[in-house]
């Protein structure tokens, strides 16, 4: 057997793995990325949106060159009743500024570009190999990986193997995901053509929108729908917290159809051709879900480290992946210089992460997961809003009721103290 030894082996060739590989290779580190997909991006699924700021630090102006889909310049959030939709729309010129911009992306197109960047910098990739185990030496320090029969050795292992990081679990760094802390996402990519997307959404080439929908889509369960405009297609999907499966009686896969058939959505999707069907887990436990991030000879980054923020109106993961990869790479460089990959040295990673936007933001929004995990948000408030709107907008010739009366009637159904309590909690969680 070939006894080749690398400085670093990275498990997983997604955004985290590729960014770390790129930065390490650029600094002259011998790095090998082991990816189980046959080709880059073939196992990666995103809902569809990446905030660009973290990637911008690594590849300034990346969106000019990288295969991003569209720059997101409009936000939409809808509360859906059975036949109603109350929508908030937000446009902001600053969404076009590079440091604040976000992009819809498709990973099977984006990851090959990122892989190529890392390869050009000198990182080695092997695709189509699943890592089964992290090898440890007699002192318990990670020293390589086992893939099938083959052992590969390195001074340091970076686990960038995604949300289902069985390896981090094997090493005891991370517990099994809890149904309350993780959602299943189900998505279709629906093809329309570039002009059709522009026309249907009132956007110009290379610009688009992000649209989140809650209420009727999950039939009251904790979760929601999303629509992102890609270049010539839409990413349309739903997420539901796993613990919620069964609540409301609609299977996640059927929620997607429910969204597509909703009266406010249906016509927008007419004539599109579904070209792909995918599913992926989304961690949403927030700050309290972050696992042990390092041990002797090993670091965990990106989705494997649950570095995802679900704030209900904003969902961030890939910017946290890129940033954690950058900080892991910096830590590894410092360790290489010292010639010491012990836990003590690698603890620098946690320190850096704690000081970065990743952990400070997750800490800031720490109360959000508990706030969102509340059926009133998904079951009662969308209906309450619909009832108020009907009072304002529907005219049938009968004597109108005072709005204050309609509104109070709708609020009373939920309970005014509950509403005030939730509003207070919501403000507190922001």
């Amino acid at each position, binding site marked *: 057997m070939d006894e080749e030894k690398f400085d670093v082996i990275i498990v997983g060739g997604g955004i985290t793995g590729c960014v770390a590989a790129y930065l390490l290779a650029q600094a002259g580190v011998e790095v090998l990325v082991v990816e*189980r997909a046959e080709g880059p991006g073939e196992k990666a699924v995103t809902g569809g949106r990446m905030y660009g700021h973290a990637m911008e630090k690594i590849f300034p102006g990346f969106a000019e060159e990288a295969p991003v889909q569209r720059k997101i310049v409009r936000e939409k959030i809808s509360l859906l009743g059975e036949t109603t939709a109350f929508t908030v729309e937000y446009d902001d010129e600053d969404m076009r500024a590079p440091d604040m911009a976000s992009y819809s992306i498709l990973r099977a197109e984006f990851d090959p570009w990122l892989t190529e960047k890392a390869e050009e910098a000198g990182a080695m990739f092997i695709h189509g190999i699943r890592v089964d185990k992290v090898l440890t030496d007699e002192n318990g320090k990670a020293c390589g990986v086992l893939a099938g029969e083959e052992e590969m050795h390195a001074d340091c292992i970076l686990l960038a193997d995604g949300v289902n990081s*069985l390896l981090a679990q094997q090493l005891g760094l991370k517990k099994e995901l809890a*149904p309350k802390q993780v959602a*299943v996402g189900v998505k279709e990519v629906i093809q329309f053509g570039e002009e059709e997307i522009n026309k249907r959404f009132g956007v110009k080439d290379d610009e688009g929108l992000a649209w989140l929908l809650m209420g009727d889509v999950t039939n009251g369960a904790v979760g929601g729908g999303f629509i992102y405009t890609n270049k010539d297609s839409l990413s349309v999907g739903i997420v539901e917290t796993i613990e919620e*499966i069964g609540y409301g009686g609609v299977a996640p896969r059927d929620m997607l159809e429910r969204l597509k058939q909703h009266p406010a959505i249906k016509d927008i999707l007419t004539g599109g051709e579904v070209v792909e069907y995918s599913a992926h887990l989304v961690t949403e436990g927030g700050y309290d879900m972050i696992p042990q991030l390092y041990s002797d000879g090993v670091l965990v980054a990106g989705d494997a480290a649950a570095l995802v923020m679900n704030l209900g109106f904003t969902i961030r993961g890939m910017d946290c992946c890129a940033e954690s990869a950058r900080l892991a790479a910096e830590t590894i460089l410092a360790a290489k210089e010292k010639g010491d990959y012990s836990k003590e040295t690698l603890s620098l990673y946690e320190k850096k992460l704690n000081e970065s936007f990743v952990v400070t933001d997750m800490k800031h929004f720490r109360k959000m997961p508990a706030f969102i995990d509340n059926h009133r948000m998904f079951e009662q408030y969308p209906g309450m809003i619909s009832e108020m709107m009907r009072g304002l907008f529907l005219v049938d010739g009968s004597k109108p009721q005072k709005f204050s009366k309609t509104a109070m009637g709708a609020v009373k159904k939920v309970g005014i103290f509950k509403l005030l309590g939730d509003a207070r909690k919501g403000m507190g969680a922001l």
Partner: protein
Amino acid sequence: MAMTIEDKLGLNRFNVDGTPHIEINGNYDDQTLKERLVMACPAKLYTLREDNTVDFNYEGCLECGTCRVLTGGRIVKSWDHPIGGMGVAFKKG
């Protein structure tokens, strides 16, 4: 007419491995959990047989992990990623 899950899975490319990457205990005695598992799988790969045991087909698996997380060691006994290069290969993602 709405597409069926079978239609949707038919759009994806799968390299089918000869050995399943998920093993289940279809006799596990928890009716509610069994019904939730049937609902949970985006690819609709879990079904209930007439005798109320769980039937499972790993071909068409989207590799999301929902079944593993939901059942936490019950029904789904072991869950691994398919071996390298096998399983679903997304062209959009």
